[in-house]
């Protein structure tokens, strides 16, 4: 025979479990989508606070996060395997957390909505992303080269778009880290070399600078330094390391293409 006390205790522990699950899910989505760490910690603490758990402890790294409640024996860990930039997810988690704070949705609804965000956040269609990478390549080529090299505008954009597509498809096809960047950069270098040989482009340096813009990790690198300045030394170091590895893969890919064809 279970008395009322045990039932109440069971319900309380179930609720704590749901709070932990929700907090860790929100944190995982935000870290995977490239949010700043202070925002992740802030959001998780707020969700826990609004769910009635006052003394929560959170420890975040880019490869995993811990959540625990002070004074109780529970402590859970989630692993994070992919780190991309998808700011729509950050925005949705933020909105949901605000709604939960204003008591428009319950904890269970928050949890289900977060799972929906994790699974079903729409991306822009691939052709639009391809077009965007073409535009990024050609505009940034003009801005960075500083010489208004109009002859290479179109070819730089086209090669940049092809590099983006290569990166995209290789990422689907293989799980090997940094391989997609390496192969995409190799292709970019190879096509740029061919284009200059066939007189479609003129200055190979300008073409390359534009064409690798969709691949280079400038934004992750700057974010890593921002994290470091904000006091998240661990996050900053890991993100900077990942950005550096990506830069190495791209440089190695282009260098390889040049070694073979020049």
């Amino acid at each position, binding site marked *: 025979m279970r008395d009322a006390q045990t039932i109440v205790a069971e319900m309380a522990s179930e609720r704590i479990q749901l709070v932990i699950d929700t907090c860790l899910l929100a944190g995982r989505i935000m870290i995977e989508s490239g949010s700043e760490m202070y925002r992740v910690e802030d959001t998780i603490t707020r969700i826990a606070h609004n769910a009635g758990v006052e003394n929560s402890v959170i420890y975040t790294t880019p490869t995993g996060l811990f959540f625990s409640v002070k004074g109780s024996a529970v402590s859970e860990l989630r692993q994070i395997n992919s780190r991309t930039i998808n700011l729509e*997810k950050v925005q949705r988690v933020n909105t949901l957390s605000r709604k939960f704070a204003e008591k428009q949705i319950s904890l269970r609804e928050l949890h289900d909505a977060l799972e929906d965000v994790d699974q079903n956040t729409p991306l822009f269609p691939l052709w*639009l992303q391809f077009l965007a990478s073409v535009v990024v390549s050609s505009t940034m080529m003009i801005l960075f080269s500083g010489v208004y090299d109009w002859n290479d505008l179109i070819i730089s954009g086209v090669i940049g778009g092809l590099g983006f597509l290569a990166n995209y498809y290789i990422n689907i096809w293989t799980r090997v880290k940094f391989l997609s960047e390496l192969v995409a950069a190799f292709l970019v270098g190879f096509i740029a070399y061919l284009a200059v040989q066939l007189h479609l482009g003129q200055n190979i340096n300008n073409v390359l600078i534009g064409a690798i813009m969709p691949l280079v990790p400038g934004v992750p690198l*700057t974010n890593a330094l921002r994290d470091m300045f904000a006091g998240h030394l661990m996050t900053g170091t890991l993100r900077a390391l990942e950005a550096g590895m990506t830069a190495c893969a791209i440089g190695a890919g282009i260098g390889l293409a040049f070694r073979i064809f020049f």
Partner: protein
Amino acid sequence: MTIWMELIVQTTFSYVGTIAFAIMINIPRRALNACGWCGLAGWLTFWSLYRIGSGRMVANVMGSLVLGLMGLYFARKKKMPAILFNIPGIVPLVPGATAYQAVYEMVLGSVSKAAIYTFRVLLVAGAIAVGFMLTSLFSEITTKIRQYRTSIKP
């Protein structure tokens, strides 16, 4: 090319380029236009300061400061996180191309050039981060002033 033509090209290209990058990292649709304005403001600040000879560091700090302030403004206006406007906005400023050049020179064996580029990457990225630090300082100060005002009113 005259200075006005250059200004027009820099303005339109930074605006369009920022929006295109925003599409690549999946920014919500209703934030796209604001992202473009942020990128434009940051890049024009950088470009004009760099043109009048302020040096790379100062230009980058000021560029990211202006961009961060624009981001704060849009974040308050549209009730979205500021990061949504900052991240696409810094794309024209970030040293991605320099990072690639550093590794490229390393692969080709010219170590001294690689060292110069690596150093420049760190300086520029650091400068941008300092600019954002100043932005968050500014937002803290304004919040404090606002709190102070509301506390004396009644």
